């Protein structure tokens, strides 16, 4: 599904990501963990095309993504959320989902006129479904900026899903959440896997990662120091030293 081949991204002398090899298979929840500054978010930004790799390749479903700008990668099936929430604050919840309907299916299905200049009627059912899934149906006409923190996180996830992704990149989706919210997020992630979406989960919160991940890779200083199932990672000596240490949550 997604393959990173010897991927590097340097910022001046800083090797944020350095020779990373990673293979995410279809239908998997693959988790990328590591201490702050270990290159997790940079990896997500390179996969979505916000940063060009210094060297190495990103291959998605057999296609090298190097030539695709960010908005085309979404159309190819890669959607994401942001570590620091980036909603369109002055648009309503509903409009935030509306503008994100840019999947290849949506572009092919609707005519140009209906897609850009048509009203809201044709897409109401789909957006209602997303709102239902995220528990935001009662807030649909609220401005995104007025939502509570947890609701904003949920809206960002729904906005990524509005693009019908095949691969979903979640950049620290549980940051700042309490354990009840983390539990709901875990249920949502598991429900998504049942629909066939492949998920790359970048996360600090072990409570979430250990509960959902099929496979985990650990980064430190831009390099992969371990990879395996949750049980293998928890027992891995290098990981315990670099990361898990005293705060297994």
């Amino acid at each position, binding site marked *: 599904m997604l393959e990173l081949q010897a991927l590097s991204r340097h910022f001046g002398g800083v090797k944020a990501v350095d020779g990373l090899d990673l293979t995410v298979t279809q239908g998997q929840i693959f988790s990328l963990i590591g201490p702050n500054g270990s290159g997790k978010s940079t990896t997500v930004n390179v996969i979505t095309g916000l940063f060009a790799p210094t060297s190495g390749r990103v291959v998605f479903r057999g296609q090298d993504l190097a030539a695709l*700008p960010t*908005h085309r990668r979404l159309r190819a099936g890669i959607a994401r959320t942001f570590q620091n929430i980036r909603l369109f604050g002055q*648009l309503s919840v509903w409009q935030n989902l509306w503008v994100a309907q840019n999947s290849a299916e949506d572009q092919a299905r609707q005519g140009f006129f209906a897609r850009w200049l048509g009203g809201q009627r044709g897409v109401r059912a789909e957006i209602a479904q997303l709102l239902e899934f995220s528990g935001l149906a009662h807030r649909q006409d609220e401005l995104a900026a007025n939502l509570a923190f947890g609701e904003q996180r949920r809206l960002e996830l729904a906005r990524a899903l509005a693009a019908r992704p095949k691969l979903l990149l979640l950049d620290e989706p549980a940051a700042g959440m309490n354990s009840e919210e983390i539990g709901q997020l875990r249920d949502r992630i598991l429900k998504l896997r049942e629909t066939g979406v492949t998920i790359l989960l970048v996360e600090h919160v072990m409570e979430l990662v250990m509960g959902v991940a099929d496979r985990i890779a650990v980064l430190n200083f831009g390099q992969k120091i371990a990879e395996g199932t949750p049980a293998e990672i928890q027992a891995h000596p290098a990981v315990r030293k670099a990361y898990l240490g005293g705060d297994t949550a």
Partner: protein
Amino acid sequence: MDFYFGLVQIIGVHTLLGLSAYIVLLTGQVSLAQAGFFAVGAYAAGMLTVLAGWHLVPALGASAVCGAGVACAVGFPALRVKGLMLVIATLAFGEGVRLFFFNFDYQIARGDIKVGPLGGEGFRQIRFFPENGWTTGEVMLFIWLFVAAAMALLWWFDRSRYGSVLRAVGEDELAAQSVGINLTAVKVSAMTVGGAIAGVGGGLYAHYTTHIEHASFNILVATFAIAYPIVGGLRNVFGTVLAVIFVQGFLIEGLRFLGDWRNLLFGALIVLAMNLRPSGFLGARRRA
């Protein structure tokens, strides 16, 4: 009465100018190129009615096409830069257009006089309205027909997905491209629509003043164009209309009795208005 009709004409044309900047500003781009598109529309419509003998309505259509075409062509390179760089780039374009018309001669003989643009002398005898016996009131209504059409178009955009996409780009370009929006296409399309509206505005302006010259399209006009939607706010098109009425009707005409003191008060009142309503008369909805 004609004085008031004339004032309403000016407000109408400036509203078109403001609306052309409004749609570009929705995408977060501050453009000082609108006066350039306005000039292109003015010369195009004037030359078509005076030199080619067209009726004004198709000539205004041609103004819209010329304004849109130039805006689209300028948009591709200019919108690759952002913020202050874009301001400078569009300012340079606007001045370039002005200097082009400063040097542009294209006159033909009509009886014993020559008509057409003559460089620094400007383009006189754009006399479609007087020749066809239109009264000031009729001209005013004609202008406002186009203003209403432009407002309706932008109102419709705001209700459609396109309008939400424009605002999404204006709020956060990085998030917008991450949800699959093609930034270049969206920004250039907004610039193109803005160019068409400014072109029509210019065509109408050329015909009600009957005389245009390069100085009618200077930096001051470009500044006004972008000031209207900023002062008026971006919630909807009526903010821009209110701002034009405030500036042209109240500050420029309403305070004329103050003589030289007016210019002093003019700046002070704009600063005051911006302080009282920082996001414009009809600003974006705020946090509860």
